């Protein structure tokens, strides 16, 4: 257990130089490109996975929405790989920093909304009022829909930050508890260790699911607006 539980979340700085830049850029090393038709196993696996994900995610969009494919695919790759790398021991996860998630969420959401407002003004404004509402409720409902629209980027960023940070904190705490319990009672330590294993499996799933959810929601906002 750390003296301060949150030391693993501070931005890494070495001799005043931002080491965090290198850590953010590191996942790009793990995705090599290849111009060949038949490449090595690593690249083939990644291309197959990318094709699967892009087909599943971009099939609902029209041709205008599908211009965002590159952006959304790189987004899901980045968030997925960063979250998974954060599960390695001692590593730093950039997506635990709210600043970074806000930096990802706000421009993407704003891009989708402004595209909708520019190109299909009437239709995108019509989203503020669900179909079939009784007339007296209309003013209140428009206000509520506006608030829910502006909360979307905040929710995107905070959801990702909170999920990943909470998972990491739980792993730290339960791991520390297991270590402390080893000398007191081995059976309880074994139970805690089983909980730790299950939690780690959950964290692997959460890492990938959060990437998926982020990208899916951005694509949904896009679908509404193209």
């Amino acid at each position, binding site marked *: *257990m*750390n*003296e301060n539980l949150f*030391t*693993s979340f501070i931005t*890494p700085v*070495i001799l005043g130089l931002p*080491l965090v830049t290198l850590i953010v850029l*590191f996942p790009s*090393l*793990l995705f*090599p490109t290849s111009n060949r038709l038949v*490449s*090595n*196993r*690593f690249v083939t696996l990644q291309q197959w996975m990318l094709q699967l994900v892009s087909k599943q995610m971009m099939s609902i969009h029209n041709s205008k929405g599908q211009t965002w494919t590159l952006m959304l695919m790189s987004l899901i790759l980045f968030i997925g790989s960063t979250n998974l*790398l954060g599960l*390695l*021991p*001692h*590593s*730093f996860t950039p997506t635990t920093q709210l600043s970074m998630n806000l930096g990802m969420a706000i421009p993407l959401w704003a891009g989708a909304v402004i595209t909708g407002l520019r190109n299909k003004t009437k239709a995108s404004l019509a989203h503020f009022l669900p179909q079939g509402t009784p007339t007296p409720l209309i003013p209140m409902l428009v206000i509520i829909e506006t608030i829910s629209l502006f909360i979307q980027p905040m929710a995107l960023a905070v959801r990702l930050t909170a999920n990943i940070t909470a998972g990491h904190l739980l792993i730290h705490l339960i791991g520390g508890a297991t270590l402390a319990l080893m000398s007191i009672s081995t059976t309880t330590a074994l139970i805690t260790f089983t909980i730790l294993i299950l939690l780690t499996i959950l964290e692997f799933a959460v890492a990938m699911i959060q990437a998926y959810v982020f990208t899916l929601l951005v694509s949904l906002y896009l679908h509404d607006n193209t």
Partner: protein
Amino acid sequence: MASVVPLKEKKLLEVKLGELPSWILMRDFTPSGIAGAFQRGYYRYYNKYVNVKKGSIAGLSMVLAAYVFLNYCRSYKELKHERLRKYH
């Protein structure tokens, strides 16, 4: 005995021990030289372990292990307080 090959073009393992300081100083330390060094190193690793016909998990795991090790070195200062010692 004068060297037949000029010092600059020798590989590291062929340089005699006395010539080592001048060999190091003769390396290209410009930004493009350093970028070239990183690129050469990357492709050397990539072509040996990943870009092969039957690449295994070892190519990826060595990179991840090095990443874990570097992160451990980075956070050693905080981690050394958590050792089981009587006096820290």
